[in-house]
């Protein structure tokens, strides 16, 4: 039980008063940047690095990782309350979280998200402590080929499980995919579809798209007829009900595993486990029709998954020095700035440091839970603000959020355009989430595909020769056929029930 001893001794580091303070600062900043549209944890971490230089390495890393996992909590709040995801991972939360808020259950949604995040966070940290190193080896087996298959699986889940019509889902999906090709090609550097606009060279910012499609279109919709906006009469329960807690335990459990394992794989995004978790919960549910109409599992699962993703993503970093996501890469930089090279040697040479950081993540997650459970009720009251007052305020905050993306009106304009597109799409029942998710997955998929083909001498055979890739592709096929089948059955039922 070497790991266990380490875990215990680490508390000696994590529980000193200054480390507790830095941990608190880290998670608070993280949560705040999660709430603010346009500012993400990656940016926050990168910018705070220079400020940590005077600190001891342990304090510095404790604070910076606090921002990383704290940010995941914050993103939930805007998604649930005003349907505006701050980053890709919370897009999924919008689907059911916002519906819950409209039903007066914002408190329950936020509460379960905080609870799920806490469980996911804690479990993944414990996983990191106990079984980290051997799992890291496993994660290395994911090369470009396997990554491509994983992205294909993600895409089939996107299209198969969102919205009521597969054709409309496909429209949304291809819209997102085409948008993702705008900008400089990742492999050759050629400019694509930039219309000669320098702003488009680096592509359209994800946050701008998401705020326009989700947030702004929601404001347009609400402004149609302010008196008719479904303002919840009263908040039904600020905390999740007991039976809701029981109902979501499965979702939280599965979300934890998903997030943890996908976090291990270098080069993924936290949107991936959130998406998979949502799809799985919907598929397993006895009442899948509740999903999209305020199913609490649809919030609990993905929120748990994106938090446990954080813990999982720390494993390749701490054990092998591999950065598996942009934020982690910045953390790696911070390690090196403080004279530490992550890897097995670090565990031997600086056990106090490593275990201190690991334990601080336990402490930090507990802090976040303590902050978020009481706050959930408070935040939820925002849903009671009269829409005629609330919408304009959200509007001006969104505009500033878009402005901060590049400190330029360009992004505000882009957001406005996407707001109108989103409004029309809402009217036509075209699901919004696939656009944003395929936008994220599309670019990763293209890169992986090109690398994979090149690595296998120009053939696609690598996709079926790798056992991991093959199994993922088979799974993707099953999901795709399953959703096509469901669609056909659905249509038959519709035609039968409603002869035209």
């Amino acid at each position, binding site marked *: 039980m070497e790991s266990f001893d380490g875990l215990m001794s680490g508390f000696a580091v994590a529980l000193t008063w200054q480390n507790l303070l830095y941990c608190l600062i880290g998670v608070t900043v993280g949560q705040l940047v999660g709430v603010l549209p346009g500012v993400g944890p990656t940016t926050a971490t990168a910018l705070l690095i220079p400020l940590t230089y005077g600190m001891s390495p342990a304090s510095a890393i404790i604070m910076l990782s606090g921002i990383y996992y704290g940010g995941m909590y914050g993103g939930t709040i805007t998604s649930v309350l005003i349907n505006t995801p701050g980053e890709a991972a919370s897009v999924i939360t919008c689907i059911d979280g916002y519906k819950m808020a409209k039903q007066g259950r914002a408190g329950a949604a936020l509460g379960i998200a905080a609870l799920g995040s806490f469980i996911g966070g804690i479990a993944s940290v414990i996983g990191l402590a106990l079984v980290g190193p051997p799992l890291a080896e496993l994660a290395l087996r994911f090369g470009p080929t396997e990554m491509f298959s994983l992205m294909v699986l993600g895409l089939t889940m996107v299209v198969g499980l969102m919205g*009521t*019509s597969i*054709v*409309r889902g*496909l*429209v949304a999906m*291809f*819209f997102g*995919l*085409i948008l993702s*090709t705008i900008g400089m*090609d990742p*492999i*050759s550097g*050629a400019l*694509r*579809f930039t219309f000669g606009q320098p702003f488009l060279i680096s592509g359209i910012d994800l946050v701008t798209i998401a705020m326009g499609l989700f947030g702004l279109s929601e404001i*347009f*919709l609400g*402004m*149609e*007829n*302010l008196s008719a906006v*479904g303002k919840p009469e009263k908040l039904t329960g600020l905390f999740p009900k007991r039976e809701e807690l029981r109902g979501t335990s499965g979702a939280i459990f599965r979300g934890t595993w998903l997030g943890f394992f996908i976090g291990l794989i270098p080069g993924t995004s936290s949107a991936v486990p959130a998406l998979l978790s949502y799809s799985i919960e919907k598929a397993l549910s006895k009442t899948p029709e509740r999903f999209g109409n305020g199913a609490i599992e649809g919030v609990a699962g993905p929120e748990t998954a994106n938090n446990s993703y954080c813990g999982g993503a720390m494993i390749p970093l701490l054990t092998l020095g591999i950065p598996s996501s942009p934020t982690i890469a910045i953390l790696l930089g911070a390690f090196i700035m403080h004279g530490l090279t992550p890897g097995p040697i670090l565990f031997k040479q600086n056990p106090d440091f490593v275990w201190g950081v690991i334990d601080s993540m336990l402490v930090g997650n507990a802090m976040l839970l303590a902050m978020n459970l009481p706050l959930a009720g408070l935040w939820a009251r925002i849903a009671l603000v009269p829409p*005629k*007052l609330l*919408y*304009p*305020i959200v*509007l*001006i*905050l969104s*505009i*500033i959020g878009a*402005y*901060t993306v590049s*400190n330029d*009106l360009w992004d*505000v*304009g882009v957001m*406005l355009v996407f*707001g*109108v597109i989103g*409004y029309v*799409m*809402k*009217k*036509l*029942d*075209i699901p919004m989430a696939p656009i944003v998710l395929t936008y994220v997955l599309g670019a990763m998929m*293209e890169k992986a*595909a*090109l690398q994979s*083909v*090149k690595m296998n001498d*120009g053939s696609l055979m690598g996709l079926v020769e790798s056992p991991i890739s093959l199994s993922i592709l088979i799974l993707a096929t099953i999901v795709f056929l399953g959703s096509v089948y469901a669609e056909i059955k659905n*249509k038959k039922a*519709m*035609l039968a029930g409603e002869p*035209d």
Partner: protein
Amino acid sequence: MASTEGVTRGGQSGPNGWIKRQNAGLWFGLAFLAFSVLFFRMSFDLAYMSKLGAGPGMYPRWLCGISIVVAIAYIWQSCTTQVFRIGDRFPGRRELTNVATIFVSCVVFLLLLNHVGFLIAGSALMFIAFWRNYALWKATALSITITVITWVVFKIFFSVPLP
């Protein structure tokens, strides 16, 4: 959330009959088709193969090609099984005016910002959003107060370089 139920029944004749009877799905499908075709054509300007393997144009060309098929399928679906008439899907004139108000307020904000600064542009934005629903003095007071608060928060506390 006037009409977002699954399937709608045929057209309806109202005062602005022609527009209302138009198939919204068809028009949206055509717009999406145009978007796909535009990108498909542009993808031919990019090399399909490059000296490094698959070129920058390969993926977009396939993507947009399939997207054209999807657009046609969508148009077909909109015309046959799931017809969305504009009249059923979109609200009446009064509601659309409300939406347009917000949109216009944003455009006004965009045009004004770099000339008059955030405080005035923001107040204008807020005022346009408020004046239909509040008494004049209330709308004015609210818009200025909110703008000043956000300005203070973002400009001073967060140092966003708002003009």
